[in-house]
């Protein structure tokens, strides 16, 4: 029996700052009993979200980390033939009982659990293109059959399925149609300040301002081949703090550019810009309205 999801409502947790639309998307997925597909740039906290949804709802958490070699079947169960063969050869274990060689995968476990769980299928785009399609029926009906034993595993409590994708490849349409979709936008100025504060709690406000202005300015450059992301920003601040560069220097330059830009052509382009006498902004006002609301 599947319990009514009506009274489950996610509101965010203390450590995880979720935007209002994200909270709504999570609740829509719960109410509609659909998987929630989360996309977003690297470093926007996609994977973390599922953990905190579980925490916020007081549910157990199950994670399925997908790799390029992952098969849909593995998420349901694995029949450990090698172990069985080994046991047969050396007379160990209960070879006659196939069930003791059936091991449930993350999806199987969240179906058979006696409490509702949050199931994270992380980086689904890493696997083969057919992978999501192979899960359609299981996600729809929340049941599957173990072929070797003809046992049917039916979800006692429909798990809340959260799926993340890094856009490594397109997902099949049939799969997309079933999902509630949310795209986590790159953090804006306010949110980024909070994120930085988690990693560098006692950062000088003036320094933070300069660092963020340069960071967002770089991201705004459309010719950029690889935009710096949150983790690069955090690393860059670490480098700046350790080297003790003065705020004045950061106002006029971008020291330790290598920590932010990982593409040689980007670095070169910026060097050339600097040589031509191009200057870097040091005021928020220079960045346009998106950063000044």
């Amino acid at each position, binding site marked *: 029996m599947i319990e009514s999801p009506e009274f489950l409502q996610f509101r965010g947790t203390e450590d995880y700052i979720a935007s*209002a*639309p994200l909270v*709504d*998307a999570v*609740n*829509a997925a719960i*109410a*509609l009993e*659909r998987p929630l*597909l989360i*996309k977003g740039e690297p470093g926007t906290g996609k994977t973390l979200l599922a953990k905190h949804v579980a925490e916020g709802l007081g549910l157990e958490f199950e994670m399925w980390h997908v790799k390029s070699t992952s098969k849909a079947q593995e998420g349901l169960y694995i029949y450990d*033939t090698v172990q069985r*063969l080994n046991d047969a*050869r050396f007379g160990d274990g209960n070879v006659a009982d196939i069930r003791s060689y059936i091991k449930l995968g993350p999806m199987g476990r969240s179906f058979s659990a006696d409490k509702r769980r949050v199931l994270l299928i992380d980086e689904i785009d890493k696997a083969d293109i057919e992978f999501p399609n192979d899960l359609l029926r299981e996600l729809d009906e929340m049941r599957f059959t173990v072929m070797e034993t003809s046992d049917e595993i039916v979800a006692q409590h429909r798990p809340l399925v959260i799926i993340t994708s890094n*856009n*490594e*490849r*397109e997902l099949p*349409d049939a799969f*997309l*149609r*079933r*999902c*509630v*979709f*949310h*795209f986590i*936008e790159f953090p804006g100025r306010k949110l980024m300040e909070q994120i930085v504060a988690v990693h560098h709690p006692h950062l000088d406000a003036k320094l933070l301002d300069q660092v963020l202005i340069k960071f967002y300015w770089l991201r705004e450059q*459309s*010719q950029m*081949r*690889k935009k710096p992301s949150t983790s690069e920003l955090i690393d860059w601040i670490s480098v700046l703090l350790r080297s003790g560069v003065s705020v004045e220097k950061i106002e006029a330059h971008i020291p330790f550019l290598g920590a932010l830009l990982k593409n040689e*052509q980007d670095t070169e382009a910026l060097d050339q810009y600097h040589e031509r006498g191009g200057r870097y902004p040091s005021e928020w006002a220079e960045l346009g309205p*998106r950063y000044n*609301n």
Partner: protein
Amino acid sequence: MFLNLFYELRDEGVPVGMQEWMMFLAALEKGLHGSSLRRFYHLARSCLVKSETFFDGFDRAFLKVFEGVEGELDIEPQLLEWLEDAKTFEGLSEEQRAMLERLSSDELLQKFLQTLAEQDERHDGGGRWVGTGGHSPFGHSGEHPTGIRVGGKPRNRSAMKVAEERRFRDYRTDETLDIRQTRVALRRLRHLTRSGAQSELDLDETVDETCRNAGEIELVFRPERRNDVRLLLLMDVGGTMDPFYEPVSKLLTALHAERGLRAFEAWYFHNCPYELLGRDARLLRQDAIPTGDLLRRLTPNWKVLIVGDAAMHPAELLEPFGNIDPRRMTETRGIDWLHRIEAHFERVVWLNPELPELWDDAETVRLIRRIFPMFHLSTDGIEQAVKALIGARSTVH
């Protein structure tokens, strides 16, 4: 209900089907949009749009359908319908329903606009309902799903503002070229075959052989699967191609980063390939190779990608001695070289950085399109081009 939104979305090229639409209606039925237009906007987007590349299209469609909600007087009829819908909502008390009946649509509209105007002045965001104070026709304290609240919580932008900003323009794949997405598209340039050293354990065969061997383990190896695609890039440089430096260089970056290809070569030309191709964009004579040699050396299964705007003086394409570089007089016409390339290779596609709506303005583009399938140099175009190179052969160019 809001069926216009459905059709506008489809007009904008957002792939919305009935399944998504039914999901959206189910969500509305459950009242998941709460009481604000902003939440309505996000709910619609979550249910109807499944890729950020269509967010911009969604914003445009949403604006078209719900434009009136911004507070202009010519409110779209959809909004009125929406207001009407509220009257039939079951969660209303008798008193509220009676009050709703007394209000004509016009009055509702007036009050709605008034609220909008007030909020603009006071800038306190949401919290106020269409109607007056605590006697909102749409219910109390934000509980009723069909109520309309203008704006949202303080500091949250309204749906219209969000839609109007068109922040997701950069994610469009039909107008822009993103290196990451291009790489995703290029990754399809794959034709996996097994050849070479036997280095991979073939598990199925191993199990079979082991069984035949009465349970004694017998290991079976096979060659690894590898990509068999060889790609030749021919690129137009200089002159009319200069404005397209950015998208072209992004394509090059993505191509050079693509390590999965069996082989990759790039040669350059100006306007049209003639008897010589340059080793790099400078087109130095001493580095050039004869086009004929290239055709002899490369087998027909090389995939060919030609990048150029295909726009030139017709004589450059159609006349003998058409090459505008005076040092390179040659009798063979440009179009003949194109035909030779087409005849030699199994798959050739042309990527044009110019906007597709301008293609037919130039006679030479029209002619070249008859020889090669032509695609726009955008992420979508590259994806189609890759499909044309690798997928099932289509009969229509």
